[in-house]
């Protein structure tokens, strides 16, 4: 952050902190210098605070713990609730956030257990990817020639789905995704569609759909469509939920008739 700039201002940042999973949360406020138009984003604000960990009351504190890696909104690490909206800290510019409110507030996501401060434990999401057998069942990694041919149209659908970075925004926004149930949420439903749309991937289609018909599967979705509004990668989640929903119904009928 360039010092002694004429147009420099300080921005008030309020952060909800929590020392450990069982500790009770508390708020701390920091004043962070930055100039309009200098591209300061939330992760650089957090870096500044790490180097200058003193609150507005002059109390020395610790650097804020948060997850981050790519800093270009592609790894999904730095999801947090900023000014009440769930999003990535690395792609949020202070200038833009100040158009929403005069001060900036940052909180951890509420749908996952807090590890510390803004870092949360998203293992549930990774476990659910495993639950739906989110992979293409290949015959091992020896050279066996190319994969199946694919139409550009199908590739286009799959490509859009494949950009899900497991950030968790859709789960944070979903009214059905709670601590006390095992709903998989929109991201995982969308992955069911992703794998079922691949020729080899679809060998596990029945297993995936069966999982989707269990408690916590696609029927748990209340169609509130909050998820699609907050997805930073513009994944067509509503379409995915509809497609997987239809497929499970079809599968259920088929099973009745086969029996």
């Amino acid at each position: 952050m360039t010092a002694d700039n004429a147009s420099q201002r300080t921005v008030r940042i309020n952060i909800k902190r929590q020392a450990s999973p069982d500790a009770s949360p508390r708020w701390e406020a920091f004043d962070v210098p930055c100039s309009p138009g200098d591209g300061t984003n939330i992760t650089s604000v957090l870096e500044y605070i790490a180097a200058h960990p003193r609150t507005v009351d002059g109390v020395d504190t610790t650097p804020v713990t948060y997850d981050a890696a790519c800093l270009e909104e592609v790894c999904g690490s730095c999801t947090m609730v900023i000014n009440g909206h769930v999003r990535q800290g690395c792609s949020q510019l202070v200038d833009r956030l100040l158009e929403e409110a005069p001060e900036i507030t940052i909180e951890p996501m509420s749908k996952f257990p807090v590890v510390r401060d803004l870092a949360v434990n998203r293992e549930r999401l990774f476990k659910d990817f495993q639950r739906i057998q989110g992979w293409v069942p290949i015959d091992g990694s020896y050279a066996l020639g190319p994969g199946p041919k694919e139409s550009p149209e199908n590739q286009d659908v799959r490509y859009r789905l494949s950009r899900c970075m497991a950030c968790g925004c859709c789960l944070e926004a979903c009214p059905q995704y709670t601590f006390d149930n095992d709903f998989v949420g929109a991201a995982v439903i969308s992955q069911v569609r992703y794998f079922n749309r691949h020729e080899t991937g679809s060998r596990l289609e029945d297993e995936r759909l069966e999982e989707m018909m269990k408690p916590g599967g696609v029927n748990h979705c209340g169609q509130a469509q909050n998820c699609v509004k907050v997805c930073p990668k513009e994944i067509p989640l509503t379409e995915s939920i509809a497609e997987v929903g239809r497929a499970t119904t079809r599968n259920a009928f088929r099973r009745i008739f086969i029996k």
Partner: protein
Amino acid sequence: MSRNESRIAIVGGGLAGLAAAMRIAEAGKQVDLFSLVPVRRSHSVCAQGGINAANEVARQQGYSEWLHMDETLYGGDFLAHQPPVCEMTAWAPKVIDLMDRMGVPFNRTPEGHRDLRLFGGSLYKRTHFAGASTGQQLLYALDEQVRRHASEGRVNHYEHWEFLWPVIDDDGVCRGLVAQDLRTMQIRAFRADAVVMATGGCGTIFGKSTNSTICNGAAAARAYQAGVWLGNPEFIQVHPTAIPGQDKFRLMSESARGEGGRVWVPRKEGDTRDPRNIPEDERWYFLEEKYPAYGNLVPRDIATREIFWVCQQGKGIGGERMVYLDITHLPDATKKKLYAILEIYEKFTGDDPRETPMKIFPAVHYTMGGLYTRYEPRDDNQGMVQNAPGNMMTNVPGLYAFGEVNYQYHGATRLGANALLNCIFDGIFCGPSVVSYVDNLERGAADQPQSLFDDTVKQEEVKVKELFDAQGDENPYLLHKEVGDWMTDYGTVIREENDLKKTIDRLQEWKQRFKRVKLVDTGDWSNTNMTYARALGDMIRYAEAILLGALERRESRGSHYRLDYPERDDDKFLKTTIARYNAAEDSTELEYEEIRMGLVEPRQRTYGKVEAADSKDDAQERSGAEAAKT
């Protein structure tokens, strides 16, 4: 050793680590996989451009695996060992096929074949891609296969764990590692019959780079301090066009220039006018002026150096380290074509590049050097002996290095879209080498005394305690910033004897100041203050190898440009730099080793000599220019 008892530890879950985990688990071995972040969030996710391989169409136009190898060697200014490059390019088509079978959504032709991209003016289309996020799709596909093995119990994920030190016995053989749980802060040892380091590059030694924050090189630096050599540490690739940000440099793809983008600065030094109000004749299009033939499309080395130079002389925008990359004059159709990359610029700067020129600057991008590895060459040099235990093993038996963290394949600079290939290739070709090594071990990690592991844990606990106890006056974040600024100023684009010496002197001070680091957090739960500071100490050691390597290499080659020695000097320096850590002195020692050639005679690389280039060289130069692309 009995086959099913052996355990292999892999440090790193980027493309290299995951490809290795998949292959080794498939061979029936037990894998422990360590990563600072969930593996799906590894730095490989950032790669956009694509992955190279000879393919049927290009082949019918005259391209081949051999030409791919030749381009790689030429691009790397002949500093790479030739047999491994030959093997890698020969495997490239199989790598693509494999990733295709795993369901990577590669772009398709209307008929449904994999589409190909022309990269950086190469004569042949040989770059496979999945939209604008190839690395992400490749990483996910491998993560999925590894999770499949995990669901069958063959892989244990240790995510949010940090590798601290290899466990090496009295005979110098690696027997496992010590790592720390980044939540509970528990430090513990893991027995392993072999350890694979796949920890990626070291960009953040230079402060801000195009790399992820976790690419700090600390893991490699620890292996180095534990006795693994470094190969060619001085070779660091700088990308000419990145978007300077407060927290990182984000890559601005070269396609902006490819489509007609122009680089300029105001003619008047320190001009602070809005660029849109600066008339044409008051703009200095310095690339076009100095290189009329190539203009804005000069090879990467030149573009990087010229931009750096202009700014060093205070002629950057407003006197700062930035120049304009201007696409505002391009037709709307072209701007549309550039949509994906213009979006990135807008998202992270808040400015619309369609309306106002982009501000860009070169940034550290890729680590060619790294952990020193060996291999078993075939008798005819045309590749490596399959399954030979020695492939990509470091000088420490049982300790391997795969992916960006090793020093092979790219020589003095890397061609675009060759890194992803190198990572997956290492995993699938050299993974089986690790398996043969452990199968031939007489005594494994399980036979080692507990004290060996306890001692290494103790050593790491003491280091943490010393950090907590130091309570000095040095702020680790500000010290890192200083290290990064110096390394960038004197250790990247333009290097010179005095600057390097000055920086090495300064580095000795950093070592002292590091001992006085003050931690404001001495807690034992998810303490990022401590882990950040600890890594800095290791990065300083790695930095010393970079600087010393650069000082002693008194020539210019690939990414290493010495103002005082601007020519390549094959007689003296067609050699690998080997850096060894002297633990007693806390210093770096260098020596040089012959490079195995045998396939292609080194020829002059015409990079930078636009006037002299005849048409044949032009073609070669352009394919070399791909290095800039990703």
